[in-house]
Every structure is written in C-alpha cells, then in structure tokens.
C-alpha cells in the first residue's frame, strides 16, 4: 500500500507539488500523468525518499518515508527518471552491487540475480560496461535493479521514455506481468501507456491533482465519448453528409476533415447516436469506407484538464 497525505514540496517560492493525497492498493497500476514540469518526478522522488517533503507525509507499506526510511526503501523498487547508473561498471558487477545493498545472500542472491537477468534478457550484455549499452538496455538494467529484491511496491519514473516502439512494448509487457501481485506506480506523459498498462490514472498539473479516475472514466470525460466517426469514399459527398448528420436531434456538433474525407459527429450530453447515424447513412446512400464508435480521446481530456 502506498499512501500520501497532503504531500507538498516548495523550492523557495516555487511550488513543485501542492497537497497531493492518494492511496494505491495491491493489484493497482497507477499511471501518474501530467505535462513536463507538473511535479510528477518530484512526487516520485518523495515516495522514494530522495526528496524531503516540505509538509505532508508519505508511506510505503505502512513505513513512513521520513521517520522509517530504511524499511520504506526496503519495500520499494524505484527506477529514477532516465535510469541513472554507474556507467563504468559492467552489468554483472552493477547488479551484484545492488544485490549486496539489498542485503541478498547465498542461494536467494543467486536466484534473484538469475531471475532479473533472465526476465530482462540481460544475459548477452553482462560483461559490457553500462555506458556502452543502448538506451533500451540501460533502461532494462534500471528495471532489473528496481525488481532485484522482489519488492511489493514499484515506483517507475518514465519507464518507457526514449525507447523505440518494440522496447516500449517489452517494458509494458513486463509491467503487466508484474501487475498481478504488486503495487505499481508509473509516471508518464505518453497517453497510450495509460491504456496499455494502467488500471487507474492520476493527472497532475502545476503540482496539484486535477483528475483521479480509471482510464475509461477519463475517456468518458472527452467530448468524443460516444462520438461516431465515419470515412467517406468520396470527399465530394462531405457537405451533403454533414448537413444530414447535423440535422439529427441528438448530434451536438459535426467536425469534418477534408484530408481523409472523415466526418465526426459529437453527441449531445452523452446520448448514444450510433444507431441514428448508421441508419441515416444507409437511408441517404452515403458510400462509407469505415464507421466506428469512439470511446473518447485521452489526449483531448489531458489537454482540457491541464491547460
């Protein structure tokens, strides 16, 4: 369990994080979203015990990060932003160093080292120095150190930042694999990540929590929630289609994109309009390439809330 109460951090007159309170329980994967500079990293650092809060408190598995830091840190696996490590060390030596600091010994030490090396596919680069590794491998080494002691809580600051799509997919698979029996908090500004791995999302802006919801709940806040989008075969039919769709009583607004002959109908106050629109298309003989129901656009919600 992660618990924060009125967590606040000021740097001089600058407020980095203001009155942030939340709880995360087992089985939850919490996505911590926000624009750059919103206070994501500062919050993560306070959870990890690296930054001391100006006021408020945070605890990991019941251990206060300030009054009982060693127990809190022992319950936590933490990937700092950018996955820093000791560049001149080989991967093998680095992981052994972390295993020692984590107090692992004997058979368990060997088993955990084996496990993280296998799990993150580091076998091929064990003797390479970390500074010669690609960004993707460096991130994996960072993740390996975070899960070394099999902690009940994981806090990962931008685990997929700067990775290519394949590497992102790998990291997300890894997070999903671990999600069943751990509490995971990841920070990101990549919204697709929320759909891919999170069961819950907190959006933070200028240091404050502005939304705390499930990904589906957030998407439902979008104007595009339950909107119907269709692509016509001929762009020439757009004006005619637009007029017809706009005439429907349940449609609030119609957006048209000439570039791909696409028309999007936004519903009035969340009323379902798919049956009406598809019936209309059939009745008026519009030639459709494609027609689908939108669940809502996270990026639009994100922009609305944070700007």
């Amino acid at each position, binding site marked *: 369990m992660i618990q924060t109460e009125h967590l606040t951090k000021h740097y001089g007159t600058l407020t980095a994080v203001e009155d942030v309170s939340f709880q995360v329980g087992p089985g939850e994967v919490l996505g911590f979203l926000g624009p750059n500079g919103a206070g994501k990293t500062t919050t993560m*650092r306070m959870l*990890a015990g690296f930054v001391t809060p100006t006021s408020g408190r945070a605890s990991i598995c019941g251990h206060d990060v300030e009054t009982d830091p060693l127990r809190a840190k022992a319950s936590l696996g933490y990937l*700092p932003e950018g996955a*820093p490590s000791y560049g*001149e*060390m080989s991967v093998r030596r680095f992981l052994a160093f972390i295993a020692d*600091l984590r107090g692992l010994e004997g058979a368990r030490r060997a088993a955990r080292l084996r496990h993280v090396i296998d799990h993150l596919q580091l076998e091929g680069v064990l003797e390479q120095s970390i500074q010669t590794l690609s960004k993707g491998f460096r991130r994996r080494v960072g993740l390996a150190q975070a899960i070394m002691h099999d902690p009940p809580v994981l806090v990962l600051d931008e685990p997929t930042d700067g990775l290519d799509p394949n590497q992102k997919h790998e990291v997300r698979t890894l997070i999903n694999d671990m999600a069943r029996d751990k509490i995971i908090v990841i920070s990101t500004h990549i919204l697709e990540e929320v759909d891919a791995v999170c069961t819950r999302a907190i959006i933070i802006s200028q240091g404050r929590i502005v939304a705390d919801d499930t990904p589906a709940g957030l998407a439902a806040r979008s104007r595009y929630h339950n909107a119907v989008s269709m692509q016509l075969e001929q762009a020439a039919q757009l004006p005619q289609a637009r007029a017809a769709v706009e005439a429907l009583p349940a449609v609030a607004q119609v957006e048209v994109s000439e570039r791909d002959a696409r028309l999007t109908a936004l519903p009035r106050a969340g009323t379902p309009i798919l049956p009406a629109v598809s019936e209309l298309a059939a009745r008026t003989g519009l030639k459709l390439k494609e027609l689908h129901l939108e669940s809502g656009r996270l990026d639009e919600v994100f922009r609305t809330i944070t700007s």
Partner: protein
Amino acid sequence: MRNVGIIMRRELASYFATPLAYVFIVIFLLLANWFTFYLGAFYERGQADLDSFFAFLPWLYLFLIPALSMKLWAEERNSGSIELLMTQPVTLPEAVLGKFLAAWIFTGFALVLTFPLWLTVNYLGRPDNGAILAAYLGSLMLGGGFLAIGSCMSALTRSQVIAFILGVFACLILLLAGFPGVLDVFRGWAPQSIVDAIASLSFLAHFDSIRKGVIDVRDLLYFAMLIGLFLLATAIALDLRKAD
C-alpha cells in the same frame, strides 16, 4: 557497517575500471620522486632519512588529492546516480564514509608504492625506520584530512572542476594557516590567543612534528577530528542539496 564496505568496494573498483587510478599513481610517483631527488636534494643532503620526500608531500597532495576527491559526489550528482544510491536502503553517513574510505585506501596504496625510496635510503645508510614509519602514518592522516575537505567541496557542486578549485583553495588555506605571512595579518590586531588558535589549525604544524618522527596524540587527534568534521559537513551538504 556492511553497507559501508559494499559502497567502498564499488568505489575502489571504479577507480581501477577507468584510467583514473593508473594516471593518478604514475603522476604521483613521478612527482614524488622528482621532488625528493631534485627539489629535496636527497643525495646532496647526505643524510639517511626521507625528510626531503615528506617535506614536499603536503604540496604534492595540495593538487593531487583534490583531483581525486573532486569526483566523489559531484560526479554522482551530475550523472544522477546519487538518486539510485540514496534510494537503496543505505543511510547518508554510510554512503559518505564508504566513498571516503575508498579514496583514502587508494591514497594509502599510492603512498605504499613510494617504498623504493625507503629501500634506497636503507641501502645507502642506516635511517631511523621508526621515524620513517611515523612519517608515513602522518602522511596518511594528512591525505585523509585533504580528502575529507575535498569530499565536502565535491558535495557542494555538481561540477567536478569547481569541486577541484574549491578543494585546492580550502586545503591551501589550512596548509598556510601556520605561515608567518598569514599569521602576520592577524598579529597586528588580534589577541595572541586567536593567532595561536589559527596557527594550531595549520596542517603543516601538525604534520611537521609527525614527519620528524614524533607521534603526538594531539596531532593524530587533530587529523581525526578534521576528517570527522568535514565528513559530517559532507553529509549535511548532501542532505540539503542532493536533489538540486
């Protein structure tokens, strides 16, 4: 204390994983020998002792030790690895002590490598080996004092160059504290007790007696307290500024 050992071993290994250790040792030995034989007139003095080596050692340390200590914390902060280290279950004092001990042991190792000088002087004459051993011990304490100051300066900044310059400056002040040129500045107006206090802070005053083979507990205590004080300052500086 387990963690101190783990951090110390990692740090020591990192010296030897880069050219740092080898460059430091080679330059240290070259300069030490040059000072001893050329500036120190080892042969011309015609005395079977290592005074010409130990007399110049503080000046050699003045530049070489801050070069070693500048990376202790500035590098950790600049690369961000300090965040990794301090979010492991280790305490700040353990980390400060572990890294300091690694640098100190390394300095001691470089000092031990000057043993050919000792062999030479034993071949040429019959020196007082007890006094030489005492002088080596004093040198080690002096190196520790310089390192503790350098560690503190390194904790103040994320730039290694600034850490180096601050380190040299702070060490220079403590080296020169006992010199007439410095004391004269105070002698004109300050009471004698203050002048004495400043003089007693001097590295050289405490090093000189040990160097001549006189081990006074007060001199050892001076270095031990100096090391403790600056390591404490290192921990405080890090605690205040580690995330900046």
